[in-house]
């Protein structure tokens, strides 16, 4: 499966949850991509050189033509990585967005764009035995200790994933 990631999903999985090795294993059977705008957003954060290197190890950059029909939903502001992720997936309907912001997920649903979130990726990893239930618990602990904003839905979905 080809997954196209939004910035916050990359930040969660790679930077905040420290899942580099797991993501690299996941790439053996899946194609993990980001649009140039997402790379730009990620790189503009407070990162070390190794974070950028790790980003490039896991994610390949795909060129995207902006879908102008999406712009009104984003108040005509194309700076949100999600607009590029959704543009790509609308042009490549077999591929899947990885988006965690509620707004963009709702929009995906309305526009019938295929999407999942970070927890969807963790579930896939769990089913492929890349990540164990115990390691998922450790992820949850990392989220709890982090000051990075994480939605209630994400935490609830993670709980369900651990219980499964």
């Amino acid at each position: 499966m080809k997954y196209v990631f939004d910035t916050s999903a990359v930040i969660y999985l790679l930077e905040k949850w420290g899942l580099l090795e797991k993501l690299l294993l996941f790439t053996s059977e899946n194609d993990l991509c980001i649009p140039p705008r997402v790379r730009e957003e990620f790189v503009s954060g407070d990162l070390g050189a190794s974070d950028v290197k790790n980003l490039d190890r896991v994610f390949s950059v795909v060129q995207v033509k902006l879908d102008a029909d999406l712009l009104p939903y984003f108040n005509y502001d194309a700076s949100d990585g999600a607009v590029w992720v959704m543009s790509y997936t609308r042009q490549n309907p077999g591929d899947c967005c990885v988006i965690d912001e509620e707004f963009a997920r709702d929009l995906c649903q309305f526009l019938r764009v295929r999407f999942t979130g970070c927890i969807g990726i963790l579930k896939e990893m769990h089913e492929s035995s890349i990540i164990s239930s115990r390691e998922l618990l450790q992820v949850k602990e990392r989220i709890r200790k982090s000051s990075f904003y994480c939605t209630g839905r994400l935490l609830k979905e993670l709980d369900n994933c651990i219980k499964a």
Partner: protein
Amino acid sequence: MSLLVDYGLDSPARSLPILALSLKDRNDQTTMGIMHIQKVMRYFEYLSGKGQIEFSHYKFGAVSYELMENIETLEDCGLVEEPEKDHLRLTALGSDIVSDVRSIVGDEDVRRLAFAKTQLNDLPLDELMFFMYKLLPETREHSTQAETLEKRKVPLSGSLFMKGRINSVTAGKWSGMTEKQFLASLSK
């Protein structure tokens, strides 16, 4: 088709409210308040970029008298009713013609209208008005509330973001912060 013509439903100011009242919001409600239907229609117009209904700027922001007059006509025709003050819903007759209305509006606009209703119909009035004033700053021109709402921009933007009505880029802008500052303020 003749029923649509008989009721003047070939006009967007009549077909769109019928369609809006047939769609469910996040709470599975189809009923809409007068202010909510006005704002949902204006948001729909913004999303479609078509300008099919005329809006002016009054003390409650963008309001359409064309829409209100046509809704009154729909009530007179027995297609729409007001079960309680300032709340509208379709009658059984109104519900019967929805599929015909859908066919003239087209799938893309049905989706846009459904999105607009889902995003706005369950919002409390202060969040609804704040959303519209921020989306369309020109509608603040004669507003009696925009200034008061602006003073509450941080909690209002935060609430709209948490409810999934705006993205973090917009929430940052509307609350007067960078996106990063806005997200950091949520985790405090």
